[in-house]
C-alpha cells in the first residue's frame, strides 16, 4: 500500500533522508520514530506530496507520487504536525472546503462532516471561526477533515501533540479501528509509549537512514535488551 524505493532528499549542505526503502502493506499501522532532525518530517512531506525527493520513488496504493501526484493524493489523508489552517473559515466551512477538494458530493459531505465533528467533539464549534480554536481543537479539526473522504492511506506527523488525554485515547482507538478495517497508517511520533501500544511495526530513523525496522519485540531483540520499554530500546539503537 505504501512503497518507498531508495528515497533520498538532499538539501544544500545536508542529506535529510538517504536511500530509504520501505514497504507497508494494507491495514498496517506503522510507527516512525527517531531523534529530532533525523528525517521523519522530511519523509512524511515527501510521502504527502509536499516535497519532491532528490532521488527514489514513492508509491501510494500502487500509484506513483511523482508521475501521478493528484491521483496518489486522492488516496491519502494527510495530518501535519502543526495545525496551520484558514483562520477566517469556520470549522464546518473548512470541512466543506476539504470535501470540495476531494469532490465529495453534498449529501455525503453533510453526513460525513457531522459524524467527523461529533467524533472529535467539535459539533458545538462547527460554526465558529477557526481563529478562536485552541491548538488541540485545530489538530482535531484537521483529523476530522483528513478522514472525510475515507482515505485508504493516512500519513500523520506527531498526532498526539496538543491533544488532551481523552483525545489521545480517542485517536489511538480510531487508528487501531481504521487499520483493522484495512486503512494503512504511517505515523511519525516522539511518544514512544503510543507507538509501542498501537503500532504493528516500528521503523527507527537516525541521521536520514533507517537503522531498524520490526515489531516492538523484534526491536528489543535487535537492541539486545529484554524486559525494557521502547525508550530504552530506542536509546540503545541510536547509540549503536
Amino acid at each position, binding site marked *: 500500500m505504501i512503497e518507498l524505493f531508495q528515497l533520498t532528499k538532499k538539501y544544500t549542505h545536508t542529506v535529510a533522508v538517504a536511500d530509504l526503502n520501505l514497504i507497508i502493506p494494507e491495514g498496517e499501522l506503522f510507527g516512525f520514530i527517531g531523534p529530532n532532525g533525523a528525517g521523519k518530517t522530511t519523509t512524511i512531506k515527501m510521502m504527502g506530496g509536499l516535497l519532491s525527493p532528490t532521488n527514489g520513488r514513492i508509491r501510494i496504493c500502487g500509484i506513483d507520487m511523482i508521475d501521478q501526484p493528484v491521483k496518489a493524493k486522492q488516496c491519502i489523508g494527510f495530518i501535519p504536525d502543526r495545525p496551520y489552517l*484558514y483562520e477566517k473559515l469556520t470549522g464546518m466551512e473548512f470541512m466543506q472546503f476539504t470535501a470540495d477538494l476531494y469532490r465529495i458530493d453534498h449529501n455525503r459531505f453533510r453526513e460525513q462532516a457531522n459524524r467527523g465533528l461529533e467524533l472529535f467533539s467539535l459539533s458545538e464549534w462547527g*460554526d465558529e471561526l477557526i481563529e478562536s480554536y485552541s491548538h488541540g481543537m485545530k489538530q482535531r479539526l484537521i483529523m476530522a477533515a483528513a478522514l472525510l473522504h475515507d482515505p485508504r492511506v493516512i500519513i500523520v506527523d506527531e498526532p498526539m501533540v496538543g491533544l488532551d488525554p481523552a483525545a489521545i485515547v480517542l485517536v489511538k482507538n480510531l487508528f487501531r479501528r481504521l487499520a483493522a478495517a484495512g486503512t494503512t497508517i504511517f505515523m511519525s511520533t516522539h511518544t514512544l509509549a503510543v507507538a509501542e501500544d498501537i503500532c504493528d511495526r516500528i521503523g527507527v530513523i537516525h541521521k536520514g537512514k533507517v537503522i531498524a525496522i520490526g515489531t516492538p519485540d523484534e526491536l528489543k531483540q535487535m537492541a539486545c535488551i529484554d524486559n525494557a520499554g521502547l525508550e530504552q530500546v530506542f536509546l540503545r539503537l541510536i547509540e549503536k
Partner: protein
Amino acid sequence: MISFFTLIRPRIYSLRRLTQQRSGFWPRLFKLGIIGAIGGLFWGGLFMISLRALRYFNSIETLGELLLYKLFSMILVTLFSMLIFSSILTALSKLYLSKDLHLVHAMPVPSDQLFFARWIESTMDSAWMVIVYSLPFFISYGIVFNSGYSYYAQLMLILGFLSIIASGISALVVMLAVIIIPANRIRSLFVLLGLCVFIVLFLAFRMLRPERLVDPDVFVTVLTYFQAMQTPTSPFIPSTWAFDALKASLNGNPAGALIHLGLLFTFAGFLVFANLVTARFLYYRGFSKSQSANPRLFKFKNSGILLRYTSSTPIRAFVFKEIKTFIRDQTQWSQIFLIGALIIIYIYNFKVLPVEKSPIGTLYMQNLLSFLNVGLAAFVLTAIAGRFAYPAISNENEAFWIVRSSPITLRQYMWVKFVIYFTPLLVLTEILIVTTNILLKVTPFMMVLSVVTIFFMVPAVVALSIGLGAAYPNFKSENPAQSLTSYGGLVFMTLSAGLITAVLLLEAGPVYNIFMADIRHHALGGAQKAWNIGSFSLAFLINMTAILVPMRFGEKRLAVSYPS
C-alpha cells in the same frame, strides 16, 4: 536597563545578519540595489518637483512668501498626522499583536522595560519612511530660502522630536484603547477611520478642482483667499512649535528657534515619562486582554443555496474560501473603500475635463484622451491587482500545506486563483473604460478598441500578478499585502508598466491611421492595412505571452520554494 538592551538585541542581530550572511549575498545585494534605486528615483522626483514648485511660489511678488509659509505649515501638520497614524498601527502590532510577544512576556523582565524596548522599535519603524520622504520638501525650503547649516541641524532635531511625540501620543492612546476594545478590532477600526478621513479630505480637495489654479482668471481669486486666511494654527499642536522653530531658522534667526525647540524637547521627554508610568500599570493588563479571541461581528449562513446548486470541485473550494476570508478580514474593507474613492475620482476627472477649451479639435482631443485612458485604466488595474491578486498566493500563509497535500496540481491551483481575480478586475476595468468613454463622447471605433484592448490586457496583468506572486511567495509574513513592496512586487509593477506601454505603442500608429481615415473619409492603403494587422497581432501576442509565461514561471518557482 540591562533587560532593555537584551530585548532589542534580536533586532540588531537580524539586521547585522543581513550583511554577514554569505549564501545568497549577491542576489540579495542585487534585489536591495533595485529597491534602493527605485526608492532613490522616487525621492529624487519628489525633490525636483518640490524645488520647482517652491521656486515658482517664491517668484510671485508679495504673496509668494506668504504662500510658502502657509504651505510649510500645512506640510508639517500633514507630516505630524501621518506620523501619528503610522505610529498607532505600528504600536498596536509591536506592543500587542506580534507573534514573538508570547515568548517575550514569559521572560523575567519588568513590563515597563519590555514596553520601552518595543516602543523604541515601534517609533523607528513607524517614522523612518515618513521622514525620509518628507526630506525633499524640507531640503527644498532650505535651498529656496538660502538657509545655513543650522537650519538642517535643527531640522534633524525637530523631525526626531516630532517622531517621539507622535509615537508617545499614539502609544498612550493605544494602551488606553486596548483596555476597552480588543487589539485586533482597534487596528481595523483605526485603519478604517483613518482611511475614511483620508477619503473624505481627498474627495473634498478634488471637488474643489485645484486644477483651476492654472487658470489665470481664477488664480488671483485663490491667492486673495490665501492672503485672507492668515489665522495662525493652534499653539498647542507640536507641529506649530516645529513650524515656528523652522520658520525662525529659515529667516536666519536660529537663536529665535530655541524656545520652540525647547518646547518640543520637553514635551517629548514628558511623553516618554508618561508612557513609562502608564505602561507600568496598563501595558500587561492590555496585553493579557488582547489574548482572548474576538467574538464574530456577523454570522451569515447564506452559502447553503449556492453550495446545493454548484458541484463539489476544487474550483468551488477555493472560490468560497477566497470570498469568505476576504469578507471576514476587516483590514480588506478599508482597501475596498479606498478603491471606491479612487474610481469616483477617476470618473469625476473625466467629467470635469475642459475638452472644449482645448486648442486642438474637440473630436480629435476626445479620442486621443480615450486612447490614453486605456493606459491610465490599465495602470489603475495594475495597482489594484498588485494590492489584491499579487499577495493571493502568499495569503495562504503557513496553511499552504493544505494546497500541496490536496489532490490538485499547482497549475490548477494557480489558474483557479487567476479566475477568482480575473473576473472582478475585468468587470471593474471595463466599467471604468466604458463610463469614461461615454463621458468623453468618443467614436464607436474608439469605444470598441478600448473595450477589446482592456479585455486582453486584464488577463495579462492578472496573470503577471498571480505568476510573480507565486514566484516570490512569502508564507511567513504577518501581512502578505505588504509583499507588493518586496522585490517580486517591484518586478511585477515594472513588467506590468512595460506591458501596458508596449501594447499602447503598438496600437498608437494603427489607431491614428484608422481614426484619421475615418474623419477624412479615406480608405486605408495596403501598407497601412498590413501595418495595422501586424501591430494588432503583435499586441495580441504580447498579451498572450504575458498570460502564459509568468504563470509557468510562477508554477515552477512555487514547486521548489515550498517549504521555504
